């Protein structure tokens, strides 16, 4: 027990020290060089601005909006990506005719589409959800496509000789062996989704942390700007940690390094 605690400290100790050192250095720098607040706010002013914003609930509203639109778009984009990937690997015709279009669209920088989405869909939150879905769609799709084609061909022969259907093979073998790489794609998709959400909020500019970040930068309210960025950071780190936890729980056999599926 004690050993595990000390090991835990050994791992998380140095980064915590670093974070504290950065905050101390930050305040000392402001004191020594008299850096004005419109260039660099003190850590204290950032936290108090964050506290005020969260107390008066307006910042809460923006935060919740951003996270809600991001995750909603992410779920839509990821589901669509999985469905399309399955269609492509299950049906030869879909692969022949649809895959070239998918690959061509993949090389479009999705962020460049943001103003177009705005023209098409308009001011509302639905354009932000669309952008989040669009940015999180491709990483999952590309990874799933690659992974679903990499299965053990011996197993394919076995299933075929036993007369198992294609759907059964998909469920038992393809999805199973592709799962780690699909999850890797979903992790990238989650982050790209957040990027898409924030950039779209820059453009739509009515609600959300992206809006707060931009308007506070325009009015040189740097404590609020730093605070909103901090909230985004917390959201990003928390949600990807949750996704990684889900991965560890669902793909429990991955952890038992090399011991395979004998758990």
């Amino acid at each position: 027990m004690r050993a595990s605690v000390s090991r835990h400290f050994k791992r998380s100790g140095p980064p915590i020290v670093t974070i504290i050192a950065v905050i101390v250095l930050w305040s000392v720098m402001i004191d020594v060089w008299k850096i004005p607040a419109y260039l660099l706010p003190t850590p204290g002013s950032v936290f108090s601005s964050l506290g005020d914003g969260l107390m008066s609930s307006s910042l809460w509203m923006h935060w919740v909006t951003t996270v809600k639109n991001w995750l909603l778009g992410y779920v839509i984009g990821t589901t669509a990506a999985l469905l399309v990937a399955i269609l492509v690997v299950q049906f030869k015709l879909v692969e022949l005719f649809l895959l070239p279009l998918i690959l061509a669209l993949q090389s479009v920088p999705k962020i460049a589409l943001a103003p177009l989405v705005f023209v098409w869909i308009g001011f509302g939150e639905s354009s932000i959800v669309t952008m989040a879905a669009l940015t999180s769609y491709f990483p999952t799709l590309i990874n799933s496509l690659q992974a679903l084609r990499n299965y053990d061909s011996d197993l394919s022969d076995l299933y075929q000789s036993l007369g198992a259907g294609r759907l059964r093979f998909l469920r038992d073998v393809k999805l199973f062996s592709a799962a780690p790489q699909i999850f890797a794609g979903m992790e990238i998709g989650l982050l790209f989704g957040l990027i898409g959400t924030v950039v779209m909020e820059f453009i739509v500019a009515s609600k959300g942390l992206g809006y707060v970040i931009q308007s506070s930068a325009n009015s040189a309210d740097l404590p609020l700007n730093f605070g909103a960025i901090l909230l985004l950071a917390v959201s990003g780190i928390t949600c990807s940690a949750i996704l990684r936890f889900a991965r560890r729980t669902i793909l429990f056999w991955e952890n038992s390094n090399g011991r395979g599926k004998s758990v």
Partner: protein
Amino acid sequence: MGEVKVSNSRSSQRTLTVLAALFSFGMVLVAWHAATAWFGVPNYILPSLRELYDSAWYGLVDGVLHEHIRFTLTATIVGLAAGTVLGFLVGVLVTEIPILERAIYPIVIAIQSIPKVALAPLIIVYFGFGIESKIFTVALLVFFPIFINTMTGMRSVDSEMRDLFRTLSAGWLYTFMTIKLPSALHSLFNGLKIAVIVGIIGCITSEYIASTKGLGFIIKARSGELDVSMMFVCIFILSIIGAGAIYSIEALQRKVVFWSVQE
């Protein structure tokens, strides 16, 4: 005999793939034309092919877009170069000093889950509307994937090899050049592919927020006038830039790290 047959069927397979792809792209054009010419889809949703052609001509041949293409390319390339050099140097430095590695690596991993584009408005406050803010945004976004991939590459050196070099008391530079750098290069190139994508994202986003030049600026400005055809042309150019960059990096990777590229 058998082999000839196999290669024959493979080449006919390839012909089929190419034909299907051409057919799909042809169908998209036909559907596009049908939508705009016959079904009356308004041109602020989908411009007609004729309008697209005119915009492309106006932008590329008459040269209205030239300075914007140059602006975006310059900002992206300079930022990419700066971010790559810095990310690589800091990555090497941090892996060589164990205490730094333990203090910083976990934090950098956490920073991966933060959308760094959120800093773009702040960077504009610091550096202004000009190209400097774009270069800095690109460099900042590029820094992290390069840094992480350099560290991952350096850490993946075969430990027996490292022990061997230590027993033979090889110097730091010699060890670095013979085993560490070659092992880091493969991972560095993979980082570069991510870096190009996030670098373009950074440049476009910064141009959306405040700029007087650049393809991102044009896309955003044209969206206000519902000039969707010019937006399409700019998005297309950005796609070509992105795909071209990825393609050149992969070609370079095959040349430089020829020993570790799997087909």
